[in-house]
């Protein structure tokens, strides 16, 4: 019978866990431990953010246009006909986009009513 793992051994497994590199038995043990350990849970959250950054180490490659076209084809049957957009919060991009600044019917930012937002931005008036 194997000796139970110590907490420091579980802490060491956290890196392999977020990298998706644990062996199945270690992964099973770690997941069980994780459900009852707030220290390891917080550690995993932090390491997940670090792992997420690794993706940016890759040089960018432009996806082919056919990629979005394929996604669009799949979602088209379900897509809502019209959605009222929320007002962008200040700082989301520093300033409203060009379509918003030209709002002719309310002459203010942000627009007072969502419907005003919608029509100003979508009809281009």
């Amino acid at each position, binding site marked *: 019978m194997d000796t139970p793992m110590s907490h420091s051994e579980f*802490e*060491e*497994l*956290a*890196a*392999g866990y*977020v*990298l*998706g*590199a*644990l*062996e199945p038995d*270690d992964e099973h043990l770690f997941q069980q431990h994780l459900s009852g350990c707030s220290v390891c849970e917080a550690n995993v*959250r*932090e*390491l*997940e*953010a*670090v*792992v*997420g*950054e*690794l*993706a*940016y*180490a*890759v*040089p*960018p*490659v*432009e*996806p*082919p246009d*056919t*990629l*979005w076209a*394929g*996604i*669009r084809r*799949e*979602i*088209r049957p*379900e*897509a*809502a006909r019209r*959605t009222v*957009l*929320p007002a*962008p*919060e200040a*700082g*989301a*991009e*520093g*300033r409203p*986009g*060009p*379509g*918003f600044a030209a709002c002719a019917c309310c002459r203010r930012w942000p627009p007072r009513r969502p419907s005003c937002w919608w029509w100003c*931005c979508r009809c281009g008036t």
Partner: protein
Amino acid sequence: MRGKAYRGLRDGQLVELVARKDAGALEALYDRYGRASYSLARRILTEETLAQDVVQEVFLSLWRDARRFDAGRGTVATYLLSMTHHRAVDVVRREENLRRWRTSDEGLELEPDPKARVEEEVVTTERRAEVRAALSVLPPAQREALLLAYFGGYTQREVAALMGVPLGTVKTRMAAGMRKMKEALQDAGTEEHPWTRQ
């Protein structure tokens, strides 16, 4: 640039719209993260068509079940890239012949695609420089262990076999490497993009 009306919205707002089946919101998220997702999938899988399949699955998965995204667990970017990574690794583990990247930073030396959009390139170039700088402070053995796992999709036991060291050594190297990466990125103070604020 597609979907100008969505430009000023934060990622979280876009996900809420995707949950209401707003195709424009999904398109806006694709504009923001499709390239990072595709670049990562290409690096792991090397084959263009497999990488496209993975990215398509990632965005369709968000479309079908946007409510699975939990803002308390991290940013939308992390969520999408993490999903890309998991799916790409699943594929690479099924297709052993794709694993030709024995030495892990080989693929990181590739030049950026000249067709990449300039407006986004400034942001991603800075970020890439920070992540690479963080990787460069790691001892080579720790860096190799991390990159073999992340980009090669190797398990700890496979990494141990490739590096010719015991499994326990690999566990220690990965843990130490991740800890140092975290410190290095914190020191670099990676600036949060306004899109990603919760």
